[in-house]
């Protein structure tokens, strides 16, 4: 008999006033007991509406049923059969607009806590099981993957499981992409990402760090000189956007990329034990309304800022960030300054920030894309005081690959053009997926694209053998 309580069983969390001073994970995860209770809220619907909301079609009732039966390892196997990184997705998927949005329990009350249960099963597996994954027998073919974010890692994992010798080229000194240098420790512990990467290595995937494709080897060289049958490009969307307002180059104006990289990857929160510093100041403004903005704001708070404000041009409802992140940010004392847009960053006279001039905004008609337009209210300019400004208004693909790969067609804004059903680009034997194709999107979409490309690459190699 299903548990008909209207609300999800709450997930234990660190107290907001405690956690906004440390970098340990906010959410502590379900216990076995809570997971089994929550799993009983699933109605095991025959038509599985939730699955249609998941970009990689996880068999949701299937894995939840196994949790209910206490067979956690079987639940993990169900997850893993379509999702390469369940411990990551359970934590960072925007469930409320994907699987959980379609859950029938959400019609009256709250949806089943699908993400939380996914995370539980994955964490449980990591804790209890340490056997190495089986290495498949090699098929004698080589594939190169450029970029080690979720798109690249998924593509590499799937191909390795089919017997390919896969080599991943990564520009940074660590693998993992945004999972390592963007999303902070308190939301996605790096040890979890590292474990997934270690498993891939055990599966036989070779990961070469410190290799910037396009500067060192080019894609053409990988294909023609290094003997790879195909190349998958999963280089993400790392190029930061600016507001193009006066004062953006003042000292203590950061892009979110720089701010988060200093903190996450270079461990600036441990400075001076670690060598890389970051400047925080008393009052921090983060401009933007997505996950990136939330992460930057919550990191600033943890590093000791007294007052952190998120400055966003639309209203809270329109914020693209995950609901849970906005909720957590507010709990931690982050101020939301909505319907406000900066028009200038102000100089303290010595080259540092003293504040921003902002203008009030109002929402207008809904446009063709379903977003409400915004207008500045004339005469509403006023100044706000800040010592640090972090710009988190979006990213686009880095131009390096398109500049160094003749024959690769891209959109005007830089995204690589692919056939969505196969991941094939305009260049033979070159496939692409993830943020490099879509622009800044989500972990699960990047993984989905990596999977599709792995399948197509396998088909290509087989057909060229026949």
């Amino acid at each position, binding site marked *: 008999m299903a548990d008909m309580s209207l609300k999800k069983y709450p997930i234990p969390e660190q107290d907001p006033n405690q956690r906004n001073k440390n970098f340990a994970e906010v959410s502590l995860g379900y216990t076995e007991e809570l997971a089994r209770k929550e799993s009983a809220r699933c109605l095991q619907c025959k038509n599985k509406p939730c699955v249609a909301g998941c970009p990689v079609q996880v068999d949701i009732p299937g894995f939840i049923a196994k949790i209910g039966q206490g067979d956690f390892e079987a639940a993990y196997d169900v997850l893993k059969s379509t999702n390469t990184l369940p411990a990551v997705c359970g934590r960072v998927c925007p469930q409320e607009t994907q699987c959980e949005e379609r859950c029938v329990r959400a019609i009256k009350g709250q949806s089943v806590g699908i993400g939380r249960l996914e995370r539980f099963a994955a964490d449980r597996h990591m804790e209890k099981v340490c056997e190495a994954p089986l290495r498949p027998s090699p098929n004698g073919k080589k594939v190169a993957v450029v970029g080690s974010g979720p798109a690249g890692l998924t593509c590499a994992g799937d191909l390795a499981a089919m017997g390919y010798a896969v080599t991943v080229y990564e*520009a*940074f*000194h660590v693998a993992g992409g945004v999972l390592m240098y963007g999303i902070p420790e308190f939301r996605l512990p790096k040890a979890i990402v590292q474990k997934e990467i270690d498993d891939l290595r055990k599966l036989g995937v070779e990961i070469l*760090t*410190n*290799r*910037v494709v396009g*500067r*060192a*080897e080019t894609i053409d060289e990988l294909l023609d000189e290094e003997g790879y049958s195909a190349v998958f490009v999963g280089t993400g969307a*790392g*190029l*930061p956007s*600016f507001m193009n307002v006066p004062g*953006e*180059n003042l*000292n*203590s104006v*950061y*892009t979110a*990329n*720089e701010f988060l*990289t*200093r903190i996450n990857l*270079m*461990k600036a929160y*441990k*400075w*001076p*034990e*670690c*060598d*890389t*510093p970051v*400047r925080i100041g008393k009052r921090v403004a983060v401009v933007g309304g997505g996950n990136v903005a939330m992460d930057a704001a919550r990191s600033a708070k943890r590093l000791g800022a007294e007052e952190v404000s998120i400055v966003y041009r639309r209203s809270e409802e329109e914020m693209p960030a995950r609901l849970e992140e906005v909720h957590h940010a507010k709990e931690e004392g982050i101020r939301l300054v909505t319907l406000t847009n900066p028009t200038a960053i102000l100089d303290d006279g010595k*080259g540092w920030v003293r504040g921003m001039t902002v203008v009030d905004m109002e929402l207008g008609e809904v446009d063709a894309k379903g977003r409400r337009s915004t207008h500045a209210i004339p005469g509403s300019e006023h100044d706000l005081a800040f010592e640090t400004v972090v710009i988190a208004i979006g990213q686009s693909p*880095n*131009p*390096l690959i398109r500049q160094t790969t003749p024959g690769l067609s891209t959109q005007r804004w830089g995204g690589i053009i692919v056939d969505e059903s196969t991941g094939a680009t305009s260049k033979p034997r070159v496939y692409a997926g993830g943020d490099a194709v879509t622009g800044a999107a989500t972990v699960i979409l990047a993984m989905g694209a990596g999977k599709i490309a792995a399948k197509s690459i396998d088909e290509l190699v087989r057909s060229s053998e026949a």
Partner: protein
Amino acid sequence: MYRIVQKKTLNPQVKLMTVEAPAIAKKARPGQFIILRVHDEGERIPLTIAGFDRAAGTITIVFQEVGRTTRALGQLEEGDSILDFVGPLGIPSHTEGIRKACVIGGGLGTAIAWPQAKALHDLGAEVHMICGFRNKDLVILEDEVRAASDRTIITTDDGSNGVKGFVTDQLKALLAEGNEYDVVIAIGPLVMMKFVSQMTKPLGIRTIVSLNPVMIDGTGMCGGCRVTVGGKTKFACVDGPDFDGHEVDFDEAIRRSSMYRDEEKQSDEMHQCRMGGLSNG
């Protein structure tokens, strides 16, 4: 890991290292740089590729010990390894169509300017080189510089080696002699590059400077290395490091380069005192 195959002390603060990095050596060109990290808690710092040997698969770097990372690097010996070493980054210097060039190195900038002079010289251009140092003890790469240029002028602020005075005075003198340069390349402290550019601008002599702002990734991802050139924001790591000296906003670059001065000082002091503690204990 990237093995150090050669280490040379050029002056008390400046060292040269040759490092095994075949993938970088294969593609490196003058004007490009690498980013390295010495140990796991370390910062990523950029250093110019001072030389490369494609056959041996090695890269040469020359660095001055100014802070925590460069000092830690200086303590490594031949046979030791550097943890991370990535490149070649940045856009190679443009050498096409240059028949006569004046290359100016200020202090350590000499190490960065020398490979550019050498590249031009090897292509058959006439190269005049002016290298300025504070005093004779700081002079580096003198033999290398002489071999790479048709005319070499060494200056020191105090006259303890070569001519006394600043590099700009020497440039003025060379121009007064009637030398017509296709390009002036100035590499060194920001103030020096600013003065050289100010001098050549009214004369309409093309002037290239090499900027070295703080960098993290070196691939265009963080924007920390941004500089204003011709009124537009550029990323030194991917759009540079070489830029048109007449277009660079030097005052902004000088201001941004001091952003972490307090932290750098504190970090370095702490580190030195820790090391002192170690050797005493």
